[in-house]
């Protein structure tokens, strides 16, 4: 009964996804398309939640539905709300798309069944990670252990990717500056409601950052949540005030600092005759060394993600749209 119910929910959510995709393709209003993409991300997050991937669902909801939507809306301020109507139906394009789709569907046939205990991914390395997490790292959330410790290299790569994305946006668009005449209208209801909520959002961001060892969360989600507090402030009270709280010029430095914290943590262990990012070197007790290492690394990730997200938002919304 319960399994069938889960299957039913999965089928419903996947059908939703299909419908949303078709609606997003059909519409020519870019605002509508942006909102549809936001809904798409939320439904995807629900789907991840149904698959018990809480951390991934969290990231999808924070980044996909929250931040990307705000970013798209900022971009729409620069491009205008409607798609350039240019309906050219290319036969070659259709052929390539159908071919690729057919190949993908053909590939799905070789997949193991969903939830199959004998699937390769469950036999090869996952059991070792689960066992080693209890023995060597001693934190409840295996995802954080895998992300920050076992696969610390990969996460370092991801952090660098995020940093370079921020740097690329900065090079293309520049920092911009807030114009006082673009201040949002003064709205007492929004002011009163938003003010305490910004505090709540920031506290929640800190909770997610430092609670990542025990529950869902970690540096990536916390960075986005923390930045969204500032983005909300900027949207409601005006961007020039937000730029007074967090000046745009320090954000690239913060982003670099996050990457440097991560890298230095690895370098410290390298200098004490261990491999790169082996946190056992950080303390005389290996387990507390692991705890310290994960804390530092997550702090680096959180700082880098927070600064990059806010940086991209500033860049997009600060572009001069007079020309």
């Amino acid at each position, binding site marked *: 009964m319960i399994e069938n119910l889960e299957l039913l929910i999965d089928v419903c959510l996947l059908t939703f996804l299909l419908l949303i995709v078709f609606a997003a393709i059909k519409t020519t209003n870019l605002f509508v398309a942006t909102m549809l993409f936001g809904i798409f991300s939320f439904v995807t997050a629900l789907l991840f939640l149904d698959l018990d991937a809480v951390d991934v669902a969290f990231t999808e909801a924070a980044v996909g539905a929250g931040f990307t939507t705000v970013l798209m809306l900022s971009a729409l301020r620069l491009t205008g709300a409607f798609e350039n109507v240019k309906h050219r139906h290319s036969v070659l394009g259709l052929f390539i798309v159908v071919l690729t789709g057919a190949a993908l569907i053909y590939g799905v046939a070789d997949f193991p069944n969903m939830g199959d205990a004998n699937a390769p991914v469950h036999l090869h390395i996952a059991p070792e990670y689960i066992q080693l997490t209890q023995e060597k790292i001693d934190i409840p959330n295996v995802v954080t252990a895998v992300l920050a410790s076992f696969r610390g290299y990969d996460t370092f790569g991801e952090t660098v990717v995020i940093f370079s994305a921020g740097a690329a946006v900065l090079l293309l668009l520049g920092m911009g500056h807030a114009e006082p005449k673009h201040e949002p209208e003064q709205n007492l209801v929004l002011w009163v409601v*938003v003010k305490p909520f910004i505090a709540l959002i920031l506290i929640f961001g800190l909770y997610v950052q430092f609670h990542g060892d025990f529950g869902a969360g970690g540096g990536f989600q916390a960075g986005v949540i923390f930045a969204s507090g500032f983005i909300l402030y900027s949207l409601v009270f005006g961007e020039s005030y937000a730029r007074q709280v967090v000046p745009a010029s320090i954000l690239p430095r913060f982003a670099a600092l996050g990457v440097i914290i991560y890298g230095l943590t690895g370098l410290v262990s390298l200098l004490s005759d261990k491999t790169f990012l082996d946190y056992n070197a950080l303390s005389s007790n290996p387990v507390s060394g692991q705890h310290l290492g994960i804390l530092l690394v997550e702090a680096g990730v959180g700082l880098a993600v927070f600064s990059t997200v806010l940086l991209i938002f500033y860049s997009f919304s600060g572009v001069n749209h007079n020309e």
Partner: protein
Amino acid sequence: MIISILSDICLLLGGILTLTGAVGLLRLPDFYSRLHAASVTESLAAPLLIIGVILDTGFTLDSAKLVLIIVIMVIVNPTITHALCRAAAHGRISPEMESETEFSGKESK
């Protein structure tokens, strides 16, 4: 026993309100009345559904978090509706009226 019946009532009422909200969102004529229909779903149906779940699971740490979610929803959703309404008025969307003279606000298109 009584609690489980109460929870069922809450869930049922929440479901009905969600349904009426969805129908209203689809069928009502203009932006403002649709917003009104959607706000019914947000401000009443969702808290009712969550209360039903809380009654069903009993009072644990999880239900405390759910209570927090209710508080946030009850404060945030009317604010969002308000903001959307202001944005629509700002974008010069005028409500549909039976006779145009009754609307004393901006000039209707």
